[in-house]
């Protein structure tokens, strides 16, 4: 458990449910101060707010990630309240599935706006803070869909590959200021997205995976925690694939 000056503030986008919720929960458990936002409050967020009415360790705002003014207010609120942003985990995102040529254009907009533009906005505001403090760590949650081709997820793949590109370029740009930037690319893991697959499809993925199973949320969270820790202080510009070897 961290105390005093060691308490790093971690900003996590989309921390109300799914992987984001698990990240918030584990980071709080590890003694980090966590600031997160989502479009609406969830039972998990409500509980955290009740447990910490003074916002000593947990801060949440209702923010639409595609609204740059809202994201700016959130980051300003965090930096004014806690005086630092040690790490940013760009987790918020949505899936988008369907044959590309028959998708609605509005679906493309929605996925690109949230997964890519929303992430760029939040990173922009946090990076401006981090370069003044000469340090920080940025993690982009991308996907194996950004690395390998998968039919039916062209738009989603484009956004996730975009995040990996941002990771590499920003790592070079911000490295001289002591800011590390990395991607974590999960494979199939137990989540709302994978819940849409039937048991046969899940079994097929497990058979093709050298380690013989789908990932758990905890598999992903553990890597994020490692990457924001001092143990990863010489790693930047990388995409860490957490897929049990599926893409190797």
């Amino acid at each position: 458990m961290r105390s005093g000056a060691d308490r790093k503030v971690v900003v996590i986008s989309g921390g109300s449910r799914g992987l984001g919720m698990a990240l918030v929960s584990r980071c709080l458990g590890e003694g980090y101060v966590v600031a997160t936002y989502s479009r609406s409050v969830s039972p998990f967020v409500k509980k955290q707010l009740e447990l910490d009415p003074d916002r000593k360790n947990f801060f949440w705002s209702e923010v639409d990630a595609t609204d740059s003014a809202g994201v700016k207010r959130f980051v300003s609120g965090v930096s004014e309240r806690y005086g630092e942003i040690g790490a940013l985990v760009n987790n918020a995102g949505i899936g988008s599935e369907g044959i590309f040529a028959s998708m609605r254009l509005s679906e493309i907009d929605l996925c690109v706006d949230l997964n890519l533009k929303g992430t760029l906005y939040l990173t922009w505001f946090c990076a401006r803070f981090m370069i003044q403090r000469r340090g920080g760590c940025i993690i982009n949650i991308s996907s194996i869909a950004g690395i390998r081709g998968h039919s039916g997820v062209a738009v989603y793949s484009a956004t996730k590959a975009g995040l990996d590109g941002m990771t590499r370029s920003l790592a070079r740009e911000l490295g001289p200021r002591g800011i590390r930037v990395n991607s974590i690319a999960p494979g199939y893991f137990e989540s709302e997205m994978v819940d849409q697959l039937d048991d046969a499809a899940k079994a097929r993925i497990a058979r093709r995976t050298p380690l013989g199973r789908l990932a758990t949320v905890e598999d992903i969270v553990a890597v994020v925690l490692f990457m924001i820790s001092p143990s990863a202080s010489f790693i930047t510009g990388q995409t860490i694939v957490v897929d049990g070897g599926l893409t190797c």
Partner: protein
Amino acid sequence: MLNQHPEFAEISKAVRDQVRLLLDEKDLPVRDFGSEDRLNDLALTSLDLASLVAALETKLKADPFQELVPITSVRTIGDLEAAYVRFFSKSEHAAQDDDLAQIRRRAEARRGGSGGCLQ
């Protein structure tokens, strides 16, 4: 924080204080510099300029480079100062325009919405 529409002297002081702070942080010699001095000659990089702009946004509550001035046009200390002067001068004009619009609206309302307007 400075006045809502700071004078040139206040802007210049804020810019130069921030540049000095940055040079000090980078362990570079903090020497006297003027408007004509180029950021490159002071050994400041484009990343340093980004850091300066972010710090000045906190201090001056202004970022002229979002819409008004291209960041690539900033070569000297004077260019940086001029960008903020331009920003505040524009926002002052905008405030005056808002006042004028308000007077017009009131005048229209007094005339019972007859559709006339002040010229």
